[in-house]
């Protein structure tokens, strides 16, 4: 078996996740060590026991039912046979990854009133040493003992009463735990934080909305920056060679009424690259200056070193919510390429610096303006995947338009601050979804797997030349729209090779791991975790 040596290697550090192991996550594909599988943000696994030839025989191995009612967006981690996962709103469970049997459960006691824009969700935990970390919807960061679930420290990241919450899976970098913040619909001032793994003390904070005297503050007017948004609610990536944390930021607030915030509104809707030791900004790239459509740039940055346009480069691949696919230089943030990957009607393309050339008449109005893509974008937080064997970039795409309406926006701490009520689905023209494969060096589409509905889940690709994806999701649960297929596609052609109806919302992305020599594939659907393997 190809990964047996790695199993032996892992035994030497059983259960202890060192920074070195995280750096070399590719070398132990039987584990899933971080939100995206590795620091590069690929959501790719080197396992190939399940492959194109045998995936048709994939069978259910075990199910873990969560005793919760909130929507499940978790990405489980698997470390040496133990699965650590978050349950919404802010619980953590440790399971036997072979059987799904529970070891321990941390159940967080929460205040009765918490405002999270789109449900009290959590996207996963991080593990370092023998510690498990979770961010909570009451905006705390908690460290647990990995063997018992006991609380080691519990610190306040921000004031949940002002609309701050933590839904993002943390990322471990060196001896720090990095966490973002959510609350872009509540007029927060966004940031990215680093905390000491041992003590919980804050090492640095990067405000995504710069204050007076800070660079970028000139892109705001008056006091709008104080409630400027720019949340950081999806886990970013880490470039170890350059010691850069690369993370996406969300929409400026209020979302759909930009009158109070003339200017580009940095660093909302940006890719930001921070020095991991100091939190200082190295570079940024803004996808949508002065966004009025809620097109967050919270996608997972996909880091690839490759030859590009005739020379070896460090790149970031990024399919953004607004409908364009980008290639950026990872050393400077320089824009190298941009191309639509889905229908968009808001820009006449991108200029030489990657800045969108906005059309007239696309901004929200009281009556409403129809624009492609719709309010949930041409893609969103769903993980993309890069597969080094096919050289392709895979993503979930939506073909849809939305009705963008503008309304009043009055800031009252802790309440919604959005400036409108856009229509996500137009009744008669709901659009459709697809899994698409792009040539990442050109942005050209290589294949498409078309779906009846628009998925709210991301993709996983493997060395078995498979792409695992899902359909259906939490807003499309009207009875004409409900679908819940989990399936495997041929990574070369997009042909469907296996599928199963899991019967519930899927709002996350799959992972794969191996335990006792068997490759397993895990996906959350409804309130359960389903794990599949070969007979």
């Amino acid at each position, binding site marked *: 078996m190809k990964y047996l040596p790695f199993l032996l290697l892992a035994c030497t550090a059983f259960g202890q996740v060192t920074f070195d192991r995280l750096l070399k996550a590719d070398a132990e594909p039987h584990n899933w060590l971080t939100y995206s599988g590795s620091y590069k943000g690929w959501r790719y696994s080197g396992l190939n026991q399940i492959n194109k030839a045998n995936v048709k025989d994939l069978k259910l191995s075990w199910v873990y039912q969560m005793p919760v009612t909130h929507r499940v967006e978790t990405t489980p981690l698997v470390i040496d046979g133990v699965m650590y996962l978050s349950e919404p709103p802010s619980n953590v469970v440790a399971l036997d990854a072979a059987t799904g049997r529970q070891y321990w459960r941390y159940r967080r006691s929460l205040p009765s009133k*918490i405002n999270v824009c789109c449900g009290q969700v959590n996207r996963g935990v991080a593990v370092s040493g023998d510690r498990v970390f979770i961010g909570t919807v009451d905006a705390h960061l908690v460290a647990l003992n990995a063997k018992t679930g006991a609380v080691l420290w519990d610190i306040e990241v921000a004031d949940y009463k002002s609309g701050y919450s933590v839904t993002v899976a943390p990322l471990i970098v060196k001896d720090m735990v990095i966490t973002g913040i959510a609350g872009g619909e509540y007029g927060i001032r966004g940031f990215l934080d680093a905390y000491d793994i041992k003590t919980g003390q804050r090492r640095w904070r990067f405000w995504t909305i710069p204050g007076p005297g800070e660079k970028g503050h000139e892109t705001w007017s008056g006091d709008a920056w104080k409630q400027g948004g720019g949340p950081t609610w999806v886990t970013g990536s880490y470039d170890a060679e350059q010691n850069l944390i690369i993370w996406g930021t969300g929409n400026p607030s209020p979302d759909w009424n930009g009158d109070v915030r003339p200017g580009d509104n940095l660093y909302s809707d940006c890719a930001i690259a921070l020095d991991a030791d100091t939190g200082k900004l190295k570079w940024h790239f803004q996808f949508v200056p002065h966004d009025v459509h809620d097109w967050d740039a919270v996608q997972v940055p996909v880091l690839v070193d490759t030859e590009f346009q005739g020379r070896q480069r460090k790149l970031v691949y990024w399919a953004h919510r607004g409908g364009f696919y980008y290639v950026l230089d990872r050393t400077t943030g320089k824009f190298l390429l941009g191309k639509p990957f889905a229908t968009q009607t808001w820009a006449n393309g991108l200029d030489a610096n990657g800045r969108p050339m906005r059309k007239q008449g696309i901004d929200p109005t009281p009556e409403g303006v129809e624009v492609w893509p719709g309010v949930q974008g041409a893609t969103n937080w769903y993980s993309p995947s890069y597969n080094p064997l096919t050289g392709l970039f895979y993503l979930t795409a939506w073909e849809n338009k939305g009705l963008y309406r503008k309304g009043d926006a009055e800031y009252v701490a802790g309440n919604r601050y959005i400036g409108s009520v856009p229509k996500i689905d137009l009744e008669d023209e709901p659009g459709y979804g697809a899994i698409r494969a792009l040539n990442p060096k050109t942005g050209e589409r290589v294949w498409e797997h078309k779906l009846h509905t628009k998925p709210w889940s991301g993709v996983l690709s493997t060395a078995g030349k498979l792409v695992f994806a899902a359909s259906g999701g939490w807003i499309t649960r009207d009875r004409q729209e409900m679908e819940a297929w989990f399936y495997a596609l041929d990574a070369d052609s997009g042909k469907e090779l296996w599928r199963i109806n899991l019967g519930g919302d899927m709002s996350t992305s799959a992972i794969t791991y191996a335990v006792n020599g068997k490759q397993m594939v895990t996906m959350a659907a409804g309130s359960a975790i389903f794990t599949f393997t070969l007979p």
Partner: protein
Amino acid sequence: MTRSTLLSALWLLAATAFAQQREIRNPHTTPADVAAGAKIFRGHCGECHGLKGEGGRGPSLITGVYYHGATDEDLFNNITDGIPGTSMPGVFFSGDQVWQLVSFVRSLSASKAAPPKGDIARGERIFREKGCQGCHLVRGEGGVNGPDLTLIGSQRSPEHLRRAIVAPGDKVLRDHWVAKVTLENGKSYSGFILNEDTHTLQILEQQQGLQSLTKRDFNRYSVEKTSTMPSFARQLKEDELNDLVAYLHSLERKGGSR
């Protein structure tokens, strides 16, 4: 127990009983309150409940049916604190503002308070005489070529019902689009779309009842968004139309979601 503690206990018991009977009523019900509530609703609630309360990600608020309690106090508490186990969050507005929201939410189903003119019993007779039941189900009786009307009074306004009778082709809602399918083997199906996904289609077939079909077997598939119902504008006098609307309006939800 001493005499004085016994008296205190009795007093406490009486006070509790009194408190339980006292109903908390909304103190903010003027048109200005409704307007103020509407403004807050538009900014904070409409994203899920629809701009006009028609529903979306959250349930419709225009039916007058509230699944988590229907008293003013229930509405006040549910808006203030949110509803555990659902996506409904609480708010951080002042009590006065929440009462204004309650007033606006109540106004959305105000037509329920003033039922349409017309005689329900006569309307029911007309419903049978004009052959409506040939196509429409009411409490399990009738055909399935048209929408089930068992709960239509909870689902549509009197104005909508009237329009649907005189001009049924004006706007056919998605619930009533009809799938026309011919399979590779020549079998054909026609019925309301109940559910559809990338690989399958579930319909209420007009002759064969519930059918779940696999798209791989399809030869032809189309969706008709027009209505096959004739207009009754000329067949009904104004009084009769009022009676029929009154009857349909009386077909109400008694609990449950469908």
